[in-house]
Protein backbone atom coordinates (compact mmCIF):
# COMPACT_ATOMS: atom_id res chain seq x y z
CA UNK A 1 0.00 0.00 0.00
CA UNK A 2 2.90 2.25 -0.64
CA UNK A 3 1.56 5.65 -1.35
CA UNK A 4 -1.74 3.91 -1.71
CA UNK A 5 -3.54 6.25 0.62
CA UNK A 6 -7.23 6.40 0.44
CA UNK A 7 -8.09 8.86 -2.26
CA UNK A 8 -11.48 9.63 -0.72
CA UNK A 9 -12.31 12.70 1.36
CA UNK A 10 -9.63 13.72 3.84
CA UNK A 11 -9.91 12.34 7.35
CA UNK A 12 -8.63 15.51 8.97
CA UNK A 13 -8.91 18.98 7.56
CA UNK A 14 -7.72 22.26 8.99
CA UNK A 15 -8.96 25.36 7.31
CA UNK A 16 -7.35 28.59 8.41
CA UNK A 17 -7.45 27.24 11.94
CA UNK A 18 -6.47 29.67 14.65
CA UNK A 19 -5.70 29.31 18.32
CA UNK A 20 -5.14 32.59 20.08
CA UNK A 21 -4.44 32.95 23.79
CA UNK A 22 -5.06 36.13 25.70
CA UNK A 23 -2.03 36.99 27.82
CA UNK A 24 -1.09 39.52 30.45
CA UNK A 25 -2.28 39.80 34.04
CA UNK A 26 -4.28 42.46 35.78
CA UNK A 27 -1.39 44.89 35.77
CA UNK A 28 -0.88 44.49 32.05
CA UNK A 29 -4.57 44.89 31.44
CA UNK A 30 -4.60 48.12 33.41
CA UNK A 31 -1.73 49.41 31.37
CA UNK A 32 -3.39 48.29 28.19
CA UNK A 33 -0.50 45.98 27.44
CA UNK A 34 -2.57 42.84 27.36
CA UNK A 35 -2.44 41.14 24.00
CA UNK A 36 -2.97 37.75 22.46
CA UNK A 37 -0.44 35.14 21.56
CA UNK A 38 -1.26 33.75 18.18
CA UNK A 39 -0.10 30.23 18.91
CA UNK A 40 -1.70 28.99 15.71
CA UNK A 41 -2.49 31.62 13.16
CA UNK A 42 -4.30 30.45 10.09
CA UNK A 43 -3.10 26.93 9.45
CA UNK A 44 -4.53 24.95 6.55
CA UNK A 45 -3.79 21.33 5.67
CA UNK A 46 -5.47 18.02 5.03
CA UNK A 47 -4.63 14.51 6.06
CA UNK A 48 -5.79 11.55 4.10
CA UNK A 49 -6.54 8.28 5.76
CA UNK A 50 -3.45 6.30 6.58
CA UNK A 51 -1.13 9.24 6.09
CA UNK A 52 1.63 9.97 8.59
CA UNK A 53 2.75 13.54 8.79
CA UNK A 54 5.50 15.20 10.79
CA UNK A 55 4.88 18.62 12.28
CA UNK A 56 8.22 20.32 12.59
CA UNK A 57 9.34 23.63 13.98
CA UNK A 58 11.22 25.32 16.73
CA UNK A 59 10.02 25.67 20.26
CA UNK A 60 6.93 27.80 20.65
CA UNK A 61 5.96 27.80 17.00
CA UNK A 62 2.59 26.25 17.73
CA UNK A 63 3.08 22.57 17.10
CA UNK A 64 1.59 21.41 20.35
CA UNK A 65 -1.22 23.91 20.03
CA UNK A 66 -2.09 22.53 16.62
CA UNK A 67 -2.08 19.03 18.02
CA UNK A 68 -4.31 20.02 20.90
CA UNK A 69 -6.82 21.52 18.53
CA UNK A 70 -6.84 18.35 16.50
CA UNK A 71 -7.81 16.23 19.48
CA UNK A 72 -9.99 18.99 20.85
CA UNK A 73 -8.12 19.63 24.03
CA UNK A 74 -8.40 23.24 22.99
CA UNK A 75 -11.13 24.63 20.80
CA UNK A 76 -10.01 26.56 17.76
CA UNK A 77 -10.62 30.27 18.23
CA UNK A 78 -11.00 30.73 14.50
CA UNK A 79 -11.18 28.76 11.29
CA UNK A 80 -12.30 25.17 11.11
CA UNK A 81 -10.97 21.90 12.36
CA UNK A 82 -12.72 18.95 10.77
CA UNK A 83 -12.52 15.30 11.49
CA UNK A 84 -14.21 12.95 9.07
CA UNK A 85 -16.19 15.84 7.68
CA UNK A 86 -17.48 17.07 11.02
CA UNK A 87 -16.52 20.31 12.74
CA UNK A 88 -14.64 19.21 15.85
CA UNK A 89 -15.35 22.35 17.86
CA UNK A 90 -19.06 21.77 17.77
CA UNK A 91 -19.03 18.25 19.19
CA UNK A 92 -20.94 17.59 22.37
CA UNK A 93 -22.44 14.68 24.23
CA UNK A 94 -22.42 11.37 22.42
CA UNK A 95 -20.81 12.77 19.31
CA UNK A 96 -17.92 13.94 21.45
CA UNK A 97 -17.69 10.56 23.15
CA UNK A 98 -17.49 8.88 19.76
CA UNK A 99 -14.87 11.36 18.65
CA UNK A 100 -12.88 10.62 21.80
CA UNK A 101 -12.71 6.97 20.94
CA UNK A 102 -11.60 7.65 17.37
CA UNK A 103 -8.93 10.25 18.00
CA UNK A 104 -6.08 9.93 20.47
CA UNK A 105 -3.06 11.80 21.72
CA UNK A 106 0.29 10.43 22.76
CA UNK A 107 1.95 12.68 25.25
CA UNK A 108 5.45 14.02 25.24
CA UNK A 109 6.48 13.28 28.77
CA UNK A 110 5.66 9.75 29.86
CA UNK A 111 6.65 10.57 33.43
CA UNK A 112 3.83 13.06 33.70
CA UNK A 113 1.23 11.55 31.45
CA UNK A 114 0.34 8.79 33.89
CA UNK A 115 -1.42 9.40 37.16
CA UNK A 116 1.06 8.31 39.80
CA UNK A 117 -1.78 6.90 41.89
CA UNK A 118 -3.02 4.60 39.16
CA UNK A 119 -1.66 1.19 38.42
CA UNK A 120 -0.96 0.41 34.80
CA UNK A 121 -4.14 -1.60 34.75
CA UNK A 122 -6.16 1.38 36.00
CA UNK A 123 -4.54 3.59 33.39
CA UNK A 124 -5.43 1.29 30.56
CA UNK A 125 -8.91 0.54 31.84
CA UNK A 126 -9.94 4.18 31.95
CA UNK A 127 -10.60 4.59 28.21
CA UNK A 128 -12.35 1.22 28.17
CA UNK A 129 -14.68 2.28 30.97
CA UNK A 130 -15.43 5.51 29.19
CA UNK A 131 -16.24 3.70 25.99
CA UNK A 132 -18.57 1.41 27.94
CA UNK A 133 -16.63 -1.70 27.03
CA UNK A 134 -17.97 -4.52 29.20
CA UNK A 135 -15.77 -5.18 32.17
CA UNK A 136 -15.27 -8.77 31.16
CA UNK A 137 -13.42 -7.73 28.04
CA UNK A 138 -11.05 -5.37 29.79
CA UNK A 139 -8.39 -7.87 30.69
CA UNK A 140 -8.14 -9.20 27.21
CA UNK A 141 -8.05 -5.82 25.54
CA UNK A 142 -5.47 -4.52 27.94
CA UNK A 143 -3.24 -7.48 27.24
CA UNK A 144 -3.72 -7.01 23.54
CA UNK A 145 -2.79 -3.35 23.71
CA UNK A 146 0.29 -4.13 25.71
CA UNK A 147 1.34 -6.75 23.26
CA UNK A 148 0.89 -4.19 20.52
CA UNK A 149 3.46 -1.90 22.11
CA UNK A 150 5.78 -4.85 22.64
CA UNK A 151 5.37 -5.10 26.36
CA UNK A 152 5.09 -8.80 25.87
CA UNK A 153 5.34 -9.89 29.43
CA UNK A 154 2.33 -7.83 30.30
CA UNK A 155 1.37 -9.52 33.52
CA UNK A 156 4.54 -8.28 35.09
CA UNK A 157 3.54 -4.65 34.66
CA UNK A 158 -0.19 -4.64 35.14
CA UNK A 159 -0.27 -3.94 38.82
CA UNK A 160 2.76 -1.74 39.05
CA UNK A 161 2.69 1.97 39.57
CA UNK A 162 4.24 4.29 37.01
CA UNK A 163 7.24 5.08 39.17
CA UNK A 164 8.17 1.43 39.10
CA UNK A 165 8.67 1.48 35.33
CA UNK A 166 11.43 2.89 33.14
CA UNK A 167 10.86 5.81 30.82
CA UNK A 168 10.77 3.64 27.73
CA UNK A 169 8.24 1.32 29.28
CA UNK A 170 6.14 4.23 30.42
CA UNK A 171 6.07 5.74 26.98
CA UNK A 172 4.87 2.44 25.62
CA UNK A 173 2.11 2.38 28.20
CA UNK A 174 1.13 5.87 27.12
CA UNK A 175 1.00 4.57 23.58
CA UNK A 176 -0.99 1.53 24.61
CA UNK A 177 -3.52 3.77 26.27
CA UNK A 178 -3.86 5.77 23.09
CA UNK A 179 -4.23 2.67 20.96
CA UNK A 180 -6.45 0.55 23.17
CA UNK A 181 -9.66 1.83 21.63
CA UNK A 182 -8.25 1.29 18.15
CA UNK A 183 -8.45 4.92 17.09
CA UNK A 184 -8.33 6.08 13.50
CA UNK A 185 -6.23 9.13 14.12
CA UNK A 186 -3.37 9.66 16.54
CA UNK A 187 -1.44 12.78 17.41
CA UNK A 188 1.97 12.06 18.91
CA UNK A 189 3.51 15.09 20.57
CA UNK A 190 7.26 14.59 20.77
CA UNK A 191 6.79 11.11 22.16
CA UNK A 192 10.48 10.37 22.60
CA UNK A 193 12.03 13.68 23.52
CA UNK A 194 12.15 12.79 27.21
CA UNK A 195 13.72 9.43 26.65
CA UNK A 196 17.31 8.36 26.62
CA UNK A 197 18.88 7.83 23.29
CA UNK A 198 19.34 4.13 23.82
CA UNK A 199 15.62 3.48 24.40
CA UNK A 200 14.26 6.06 21.99
CA UNK A 201 14.72 3.88 18.98
CA UNK A 202 12.61 1.12 20.50
CA UNK A 203 9.66 3.39 21.10
CA UNK A 204 9.95 4.94 17.66
CA UNK A 205 9.97 1.52 16.08
CA UNK A 206 6.86 0.52 17.95
CA UNK A 207 5.15 3.67 16.81
CA UNK A 208 6.10 3.12 13.23
CA UNK A 209 5.07 -0.52 13.20
CA UNK A 210 1.75 -0.05 14.92
CA UNK A 211 0.84 2.81 12.66
CA UNK A 212 1.59 0.80 9.56
CA UNK A 213 -0.12 -2.34 10.80
CA UNK A 214 -3.30 -0.65 11.91
CA UNK A 215 -3.43 1.84 9.08
CA UNK A 216 -3.70 4.67 11.58
CA UNK A 217 -3.54 8.22 10.38
CA UNK A 218 -0.95 10.05 12.46
CA UNK A 219 0.63 13.37 13.14
CA UNK A 220 4.05 13.28 14.68
CA UNK A 221 5.14 16.47 16.36
CA UNK A 222 8.84 17.15 16.81
CA UNK A 223 11.55 19.72 16.48
CA UNK A 224 13.99 17.05 15.37
CA UNK A 225 14.01 16.57 11.64
CA UNK A 226 16.01 13.38 11.92
CA UNK A 227 13.28 11.77 13.98
CA UNK A 228 10.47 13.03 11.79
CA UNK A 229 12.21 11.61 8.80
CA UNK A 230 12.33 8.25 10.51
CA UNK A 231 8.56 7.98 10.96
CA UNK A 232 6.82 10.30 8.50
CA UNK A 233 6.67 10.39 4.75
CA UNK A 234 5.30 13.92 4.74
CA UNK A 235 6.44 16.90 6.78
CA UNK A 236 4.84 20.21 7.60
CA UNK A 237 7.22 22.91 8.84
CA UNK A 238 5.82 25.64 11.03
CA UNK A 239 7.21 29.00 12.04
CA UNK A 240 5.50 31.34 14.53
CA UNK A 241 2.05 29.85 14.24
CA UNK A 242 2.08 29.50 10.46
CA UNK A 243 3.02 26.85 7.97
CA UNK A 244 6.11 27.66 5.93
CA UNK A 245 6.57 24.46 4.02
CA UNK A 246 4.62 21.26 3.45
CA UNK A 247 5.79 18.31 1.37
CA UNK A 248 7.36 14.84 1.25
CA UNK A 249 9.95 14.46 3.98
CA UNK A 250 12.75 13.18 1.82
CA UNK A 251 12.34 16.08 -0.58
CA UNK A 252 12.45 18.57 2.24
CA UNK A 253 15.59 17.03 3.70
CA UNK A 254 17.26 16.89 0.35
CA UNK A 255 16.12 20.23 -0.97
CA UNK A 256 14.48 22.59 1.47
CA UNK A 257 12.81 25.48 -0.32
CA UNK A 258 11.91 27.97 2.39
CA UNK A 259 14.87 29.84 3.87
CA UNK A 260 13.79 28.78 7.34
CA UNK A 261 13.63 25.14 6.37
CA UNK A 262 17.03 25.52 4.84
CA UNK A 263 18.48 26.81 8.07
CA UNK A 264 16.74 24.09 9.98
CA UNK A 265 18.15 21.33 7.83
CA UNK A 266 21.60 22.83 7.95
CA UNK A 267 21.55 23.14 11.72
CA UNK A 268 20.85 19.51 12.47
CA UNK A 269 24.09 18.00 13.75
CA UNK A 270 25.02 14.54 12.62
CA UNK A 271 26.92 11.88 14.53
CA UNK A 272 29.89 11.98 12.21
CA UNK A 273 33.29 13.45 12.88
CA UNK A 274 33.45 15.30 9.65
CA UNK A 275 30.65 17.69 9.01
CA UNK A 276 30.16 21.19 7.84
CA UNK A 277 30.84 23.96 10.31
CA UNK A 278 29.64 26.59 7.92
CA UNK A 279 27.68 29.40 9.54
CA UNK A 280 23.92 29.09 9.40
CA UNK A 281 22.05 31.16 6.88
CA UNK A 282 19.91 32.76 9.53
CA UNK A 283 19.96 35.74 11.87
CA UNK A 284 20.48 35.36 15.56
CA UNK A 285 17.29 36.96 16.75
CA UNK A 286 14.66 34.91 18.47
CA UNK A 287 11.02 35.05 17.46
CA UNK A 288 8.65 36.74 19.89
CA UNK A 289 5.22 35.18 19.54
CA UNK A 290 3.57 38.15 21.23
CA UNK A 291 4.93 40.62 18.85
CA UNK A 292 5.65 38.99 15.50
CA UNK A 293 7.08 41.02 12.61
CA UNK A 294 4.67 42.36 10.02
CA UNK A 295 4.24 40.59 6.72
CA UNK A 296 6.27 37.42 6.67
CA UNK A 297 6.95 36.55 10.29
CA UNK A 298 10.32 35.11 9.40
CA UNK A 299 11.63 38.18 7.64
CA UNK A 300 13.64 39.58 10.56
CA UNK A 301 15.84 36.51 10.57
CA UNK A 302 15.70 35.77 6.88
CA UNK A 303 18.96 36.34 4.99
CA UNK A 304 17.04 36.84 1.76
CA UNK A 305 14.24 39.08 2.91
CA UNK A 306 13.28 41.96 0.64
CA UNK A 307 10.82 44.85 0.74
CA UNK A 308 7.71 42.91 0.02
CA UNK A 309 8.28 40.56 2.94
CA UNK A 310 7.60 43.39 5.38
CA UNK A 311 4.26 44.31 3.89
CA UNK A 312 2.63 41.14 2.78
CA UNK A 313 2.35 37.73 4.36
CA UNK A 314 3.21 35.14 1.74
CA UNK A 315 0.39 32.82 0.70
CA UNK A 316 0.72 29.17 -0.28
CA UNK A 317 2.66 28.46 -3.47
CA UNK A 318 2.66 25.01 -5.01
CA UNK A 319 6.10 23.98 -6.12
CA UNK A 320 6.04 20.49 -7.56
CA UNK A 321 4.54 18.29 -4.86
CA UNK A 322 5.15 20.85 -2.14
CA UNK A 323 3.52 23.92 -0.73
CA UNK A 324 5.80 26.80 0.29
CA UNK A 325 4.84 30.04 1.94
CA UNK A 326 7.53 32.40 0.70
CA UNK A 327 7.61 35.31 -1.68
CA UNK A 328 10.80 33.96 -3.23
CA UNK A 329 8.93 31.03 -4.63
CA UNK A 330 5.88 32.79 -5.89
CA UNK A 331 5.46 32.59 -9.64
CA UNK A 332 6.85 35.75 -11.17
CA UNK A 333 4.13 37.90 -12.57
Amino acid sequence: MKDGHDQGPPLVRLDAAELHFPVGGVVAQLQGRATVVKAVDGVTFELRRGESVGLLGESGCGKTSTGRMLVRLDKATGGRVEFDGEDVSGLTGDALKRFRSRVQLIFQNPFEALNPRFTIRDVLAEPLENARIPRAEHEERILRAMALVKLGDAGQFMDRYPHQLSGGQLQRIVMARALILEPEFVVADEPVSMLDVSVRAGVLNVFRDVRAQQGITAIYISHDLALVRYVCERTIVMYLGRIVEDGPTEDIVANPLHPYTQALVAAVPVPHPDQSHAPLPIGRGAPDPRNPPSGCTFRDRCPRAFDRCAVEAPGPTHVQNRIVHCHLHEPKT
Partner: protein
Amino acid sequence: MSESVTSKHRPSGLFARLRRRFGSIRLPLHDPLAVIGLCIYVFFILMAVFAPLIAPHDPNEILFTSEFALAADLTPGTDGYILGTTTLGRDIFSQIVWGARSALLIGLTAAFVVALIGSVVGIVAGYFGGWADTVLMRLADVAFGIPFLPFVIVLAAFLEPSIWNVVIAMALVLWRDTGRVIRSQTLTLRNRAYVEAARVAGSSDLKIILRHIAPNVLPLSFLYGSIAIGWAILTEASISFLGFGDPDSISWGYMLQDAFASQALSKGSYYWFVPPGFLIILIVSAGFFISRGYEQILFPKLDR
Protein backbone atom coordinates in the same frame (compact mmCIF):
# COMPACT_ATOMS: atom_id res chain seq x y z
CA MET B 1 3.37 -15.57 34.19
CA SER B 2 -0.28 -15.89 33.37
CA GLU B 3 -3.11 -13.48 33.82
CA SER B 4 -4.82 -15.48 36.49
CA VAL B 5 -1.77 -15.34 38.68
CA THR B 6 -1.58 -11.59 38.49
CA SER B 7 -5.26 -11.21 39.15
CA LYS B 8 -4.75 -12.94 42.41
CA HIS B 9 -2.13 -10.45 43.41
CA ARG B 10 -4.41 -7.62 42.76
CA PRO B 11 -6.26 -6.38 45.78
CA SER B 12 -9.86 -6.20 44.70
CA GLY B 13 -13.01 -4.83 46.16
CA LEU B 14 -14.22 -1.34 46.68
CA PHE B 15 -12.13 -0.70 49.72
CA ALA B 16 -8.93 -1.59 47.99
CA ARG B 17 -9.86 0.52 45.02
CA LEU B 18 -10.58 3.48 47.21
CA ARG B 19 -7.42 2.92 49.09
CA ARG B 20 -5.39 2.98 45.97
CA ARG B 21 -7.14 6.01 44.58
CA PHE B 22 -7.16 7.99 47.76
CA GLY B 23 -3.94 6.72 49.19
CA SER B 24 -3.05 10.35 49.70
CA ILE B 25 -5.28 10.58 52.74
CA ARG B 26 -2.71 8.91 54.82
CA LEU B 27 -1.87 10.28 58.18
CA PRO B 28 1.46 12.05 58.30
CA LEU B 29 3.12 9.39 60.38
CA HIS B 30 6.59 10.00 59.07
CA ASP B 31 6.97 13.27 60.94
CA PRO B 32 7.60 13.03 64.68
CA LEU B 33 5.95 16.37 65.30
CA ALA B 34 2.84 15.29 63.45
CA VAL B 35 2.78 12.07 65.43
CA ILE B 36 2.87 14.09 68.62
CA GLY B 37 -0.02 16.13 67.26
CA LEU B 38 -1.99 13.01 66.47
CA CYS B 39 -1.33 11.61 69.93
CA ILE B 40 -2.63 14.82 71.46
CA TYR B 41 -5.75 14.46 69.38
CA VAL B 42 -6.26 10.88 70.38
CA PHE B 43 -5.88 11.95 73.98
CA PHE B 44 -8.47 14.69 73.66
CA ILE B 45 -10.84 12.52 71.70
CA LEU B 46 -10.73 9.93 74.45
CA MET B 47 -11.24 12.66 76.99
CA ALA B 48 -14.24 13.99 75.10
CA VAL B 49 -15.82 10.62 74.51
CA PHE B 50 -15.44 9.47 78.08
CA ALA B 51 -16.08 12.85 79.65
CA PRO B 52 -19.08 11.62 81.65
CA LEU B 53 -16.96 8.88 83.12
CA ILE B 54 -13.85 10.92 83.77
CA ALA B 55 -15.44 14.04 85.16
CA PRO B 56 -16.45 13.64 88.80
CA HIS B 57 -19.14 16.35 88.59
CA ASP B 58 -21.53 17.97 86.22
CA PRO B 59 -19.44 20.89 84.94
CA ASN B 60 -22.36 23.25 85.47
CA GLU B 61 -23.34 22.05 88.91
CA ILE B 62 -22.97 24.50 91.75
CA LEU B 63 -21.31 22.60 94.52
CA PHE B 64 -21.58 23.03 98.22
CA THR B 65 -19.24 22.19 101.03
CA SER B 66 -20.23 19.83 103.77
CA GLU B 67 -21.12 22.86 105.92
CA PHE B 68 -23.70 23.79 103.29
CA ALA B 69 -21.75 26.79 102.17
CA LEU B 70 -20.85 27.32 98.55
CA ALA B 71 -17.78 25.38 97.49
CA ALA B 72 -16.27 28.42 95.84
CA ASP B 73 -12.67 29.27 95.05
CA LEU B 74 -11.30 26.12 96.56
CA THR B 75 -7.68 25.45 95.79
CA PRO B 76 -6.69 22.22 94.06
CA GLY B 77 -7.00 19.18 96.24
CA THR B 78 -9.38 20.73 98.72
CA ASP B 79 -12.35 18.47 99.39
CA GLY B 80 -11.24 16.23 96.55
CA TYR B 81 -11.55 18.83 93.81
CA ILE B 82 -8.58 17.93 91.69
CA LEU B 83 -8.12 21.36 90.18
CA GLY B 84 -10.15 23.27 92.70
CA THR B 85 -13.40 25.09 92.08
CA THR B 86 -14.53 28.28 90.42
CA THR B 87 -15.89 31.30 92.16
CA LEU B 88 -19.34 29.96 91.42
CA GLY B 89 -18.53 26.66 93.04
CA ARG B 90 -18.06 24.52 89.98
CA ASP B 91 -15.48 21.81 89.60
CA ILE B 92 -12.65 23.03 87.39
CA PHE B 93 -11.40 19.59 86.53
CA SER B 94 -14.83 18.53 85.31
CA GLN B 95 -15.07 21.65 83.22
CA ILE B 96 -11.68 20.94 81.71
CA VAL B 97 -12.78 17.45 80.78
CA TRP B 98 -16.07 18.54 79.30
CA GLY B 99 -14.36 21.44 77.56
CA ALA B 100 -12.61 18.92 75.36
CA ARG B 101 -15.99 18.13 73.86
CA SER B 102 -16.76 21.65 72.72
CA ALA B 103 -13.21 22.18 71.58
CA LEU B 104 -13.33 19.12 69.39
CA LEU B 105 -16.86 19.79 68.29
CA ILE B 106 -16.06 23.34 67.22
CA GLY B 107 -12.64 22.52 65.87
CA LEU B 108 -13.57 19.47 63.88
CA THR B 109 -16.80 20.81 62.43
CA ALA B 110 -15.10 24.07 61.52
CA ALA B 111 -12.28 22.15 59.92
CA PHE B 112 -14.72 19.99 58.04
CA VAL B 113 -16.80 22.90 56.85
CA VAL B 114 -13.82 25.00 55.82
CA ALA B 115 -12.13 22.11 54.06
CA LEU B 116 -15.31 21.03 52.33
CA ILE B 117 -16.43 24.43 51.11
CA GLY B 118 -12.90 25.47 50.24
CA SER B 119 -12.27 22.29 48.31
CA VAL B 120 -15.50 22.41 46.37
CA VAL B 121 -15.06 26.08 45.53
CA GLY B 122 -11.42 25.62 44.67
CA ILE B 123 -11.98 22.60 42.48
CA VAL B 124 -14.97 24.06 40.68
CA ALA B 125 -13.25 27.40 40.09
CA GLY B 126 -9.97 25.84 39.09
CA TYR B 127 -11.29 23.04 36.98
CA PHE B 128 -14.05 24.74 35.07
CA GLY B 129 -12.55 28.21 34.92
CA GLY B 130 -14.53 30.77 32.99
CA TRP B 131 -17.35 32.58 34.67
CA ALA B 132 -17.60 30.08 37.53
CA ASP B 133 -14.01 30.87 38.33
CA THR B 134 -14.56 34.58 37.99
CA VAL B 135 -17.62 34.60 40.22
CA LEU B 136 -16.10 32.38 42.88
CA MET B 137 -12.83 34.22 42.98
CA ARG B 138 -14.52 37.60 43.21
CA LEU B 139 -16.46 36.15 46.11
CA ALA B 140 -13.19 35.05 47.63
CA ASP B 141 -11.85 38.58 47.19
CA VAL B 142 -14.84 39.87 49.08
CA ALA B 143 -14.28 37.28 51.78
CA PHE B 144 -10.65 38.37 51.97
CA GLY B 145 -11.81 41.88 52.64
CA ILE B 146 -13.85 40.77 55.62
CA PRO B 147 -11.93 41.04 58.87
CA PHE B 148 -12.57 37.71 60.45
CA LEU B 149 -12.80 38.25 64.18
CA PRO B 150 -14.92 41.39 63.86
CA PHE B 151 -17.14 39.43 61.55
CA VAL B 152 -17.60 36.70 64.13
CA ILE B 153 -18.39 39.30 66.75
CA VAL B 154 -21.03 40.83 64.57
CA LEU B 155 -22.44 37.44 63.75
CA ALA B 156 -22.45 36.44 67.39
CA ALA B 157 -24.31 39.62 68.17
CA PHE B 158 -27.13 39.04 65.81
CA LEU B 159 -27.49 35.35 66.23
CA GLU B 160 -28.00 33.81 69.61
CA PRO B 161 -24.71 33.42 71.42
CA SER B 162 -23.67 29.93 70.45
CA ILE B 163 -20.52 28.02 69.79
CA TRP B 164 -21.81 27.44 66.27
CA ASN B 165 -21.40 31.09 65.40
CA VAL B 166 -17.72 30.50 65.06
CA VAL B 167 -18.35 27.59 62.76
CA ILE B 168 -20.83 29.55 60.71
CA ALA B 169 -18.48 32.50 60.43
CA MET B 170 -15.67 30.23 59.36
CA ALA B 171 -17.94 28.63 56.80
CA LEU B 172 -18.86 32.06 55.49
CA VAL B 173 -15.40 33.58 55.46
CA LEU B 174 -12.49 31.27 55.93
CA TRP B 175 -13.12 28.99 52.97
CA ARG B 176 -11.33 31.70 51.04
CA ASP B 177 -7.81 30.62 51.98
CA THR B 178 -8.49 26.98 51.29
CA GLY B 179 -10.44 27.80 48.17
CA ARG B 180 -7.70 29.90 46.66
CA VAL B 181 -4.95 27.45 47.33
CA ILE B 182 -6.96 24.52 46.11
CA ARG B 183 -7.92 26.45 43.04
CA SER B 184 -4.33 27.08 42.10
CA GLN B 185 -3.49 23.47 42.86
CA THR B 186 -6.39 22.42 40.65
CA LEU B 187 -5.21 24.76 37.94
CA THR B 188 -1.86 23.04 37.80
CA LEU B 189 -3.48 19.63 38.06
CA ARG B 190 -5.90 20.44 35.30
CA ASN B 191 -3.03 20.98 32.95
CA ARG B 192 -1.12 17.92 34.06
CA ALA B 193 -0.56 15.63 31.19
CA TYR B 194 -2.33 12.74 32.87
CA VAL B 195 -5.47 14.76 33.42
CA GLU B 196 -5.47 15.84 29.81
CA ALA B 197 -4.84 12.25 28.89
CA ALA B 198 -7.95 11.27 30.80
CA ARG B 199 -9.88 13.87 28.89
CA VAL B 200 -8.60 12.60 25.59
CA ALA B 201 -9.50 9.11 26.76
CA GLY B 202 -13.07 10.31 27.04
CA SER B 203 -13.48 10.68 30.81
CA SER B 204 -16.24 13.01 31.91
CA ASP B 205 -15.48 16.10 33.98
CA LEU B 206 -16.99 14.56 37.07
CA LYS B 207 -14.95 11.45 36.68
CA ILE B 208 -11.78 13.44 36.14
CA ILE B 209 -12.49 15.52 39.20
CA LEU B 210 -13.21 12.54 41.38
CA ARG B 211 -10.47 10.27 40.17
CA HIS B 212 -7.65 12.52 39.16
CA ILE B 213 -8.10 15.89 40.86
CA ALA B 214 -9.69 15.22 44.23
CA PRO B 215 -7.15 12.71 45.50
CA ASN B 216 -4.38 15.21 44.84
CA VAL B 217 -6.24 18.03 46.44
CA LEU B 218 -7.23 16.17 49.57
CA PRO B 219 -3.99 16.54 51.46
CA LEU B 220 -4.32 20.28 50.93
CA SER B 221 -7.84 20.17 52.28
CA PHE B 222 -6.52 18.27 55.24
CA LEU B 223 -3.73 20.76 55.70
CA TYR B 224 -6.13 23.66 55.77
CA GLY B 225 -8.60 21.68 57.79
CA SER B 226 -6.07 21.03 60.50
CA ILE B 227 -5.15 24.70 60.59
CA ALA B 228 -8.83 25.61 60.73
CA ILE B 229 -9.21 23.55 63.89
CA GLY B 230 -6.83 25.92 65.56
CA TRP B 231 -8.46 29.07 64.27
CA ALA B 232 -11.86 27.87 65.34
CA ILE B 233 -10.80 27.11 68.87
CA LEU B 234 -8.82 30.32 69.21
CA THR B 235 -11.63 32.35 67.80
CA GLU B 236 -14.15 30.77 70.09
CA ALA B 237 -11.90 31.62 73.01
CA SER B 238 -11.56 35.24 71.88
CA ILE B 239 -15.25 35.56 71.34
CA SER B 240 -15.95 34.16 74.78
CA PHE B 241 -13.43 36.50 76.28
CA LEU B 242 -15.12 39.47 74.69
CA GLY B 243 -18.42 38.33 76.15
CA PHE B 244 -20.10 37.08 73.01
CA GLY B 245 -19.74 33.44 73.85
CA ASP B 246 -22.22 30.73 74.55
CA PRO B 247 -22.77 30.60 78.31
CA ASP B 248 -24.50 27.25 78.17
CA SER B 249 -21.67 25.19 76.85
CA ILE B 250 -18.53 24.74 78.81
CA SER B 251 -15.54 25.42 76.61
CA TRP B 252 -12.00 26.26 77.56
CA GLY B 253 -12.50 29.70 76.12
CA TYR B 254 -15.53 30.09 78.34
CA MET B 255 -13.51 28.93 81.32
CA LEU B 256 -10.88 31.55 80.64
CA GLN B 257 -13.52 34.18 80.35
CA ASP B 258 -15.07 32.96 83.59
CA ALA B 259 -11.70 33.07 85.29
CA PHE B 260 -10.83 36.54 84.07
CA ALA B 261 -14.31 37.84 84.87
CA SER B 262 -13.87 36.48 88.38
CA GLN B 263 -10.47 38.09 88.84
CA ALA B 264 -8.69 34.78 89.00
CA LEU B 265 -5.51 36.62 88.08
CA SER B 266 -5.72 38.97 91.05
CA LYS B 267 -6.68 36.13 93.31
CA GLY B 268 -3.70 34.19 92.09
CA SER B 269 -5.92 31.28 91.07
CA TYR B 270 -3.42 29.92 88.59
CA TYR B 271 -5.07 26.53 88.82
CA TRP B 272 -8.07 28.12 87.17
CA PHE B 273 -6.74 30.06 84.20
CA VAL B 274 -3.58 28.19 83.39
CA PRO B 275 -5.03 24.74 82.55
CA PRO B 276 -7.61 25.86 79.98
CA GLY B 277 -5.07 28.17 78.34
CA PHE B 278 -2.56 25.39 78.30
CA LEU B 279 -5.02 22.94 76.78
CA ILE B 280 -6.01 25.42 74.10
CA ILE B 281 -2.38 25.87 73.21
CA LEU B 282 -1.92 22.15 73.23
CA ILE B 283 -4.80 21.27 70.97
CA VAL B 284 -4.23 24.17 68.59
CA SER B 285 -0.53 23.38 68.34
CA ALA B 286 -1.45 19.79 67.71
CA GLY B 287 -3.43 20.96 64.69
CA PHE B 288 -0.45 22.96 63.51
CA PHE B 289 1.87 20.02 64.04
CA ILE B 290 -0.35 17.81 61.96
CA SER B 291 -0.69 20.44 59.29
CA ARG B 292 3.07 20.52 59.02
CA GLY B 293 3.01 16.82 58.51
CA TYR B 294 0.65 17.31 55.62
CA GLU B 295 2.81 20.08 54.30
CA GLN B 296 5.65 17.65 54.13
CA ILE B 297 3.51 15.15 52.30
CA LEU B 298 2.57 17.86 49.87
CA PHE B 299 5.84 19.64 49.51
CA PRO B 300 8.38 17.01 50.43
CA LYS B 301 11.25 19.22 49.36
CA LEU B 302 10.65 21.41 52.39
CA ASP B 303 12.61 19.17 54.63
CA ARG B 304 15.47 16.83 54.20
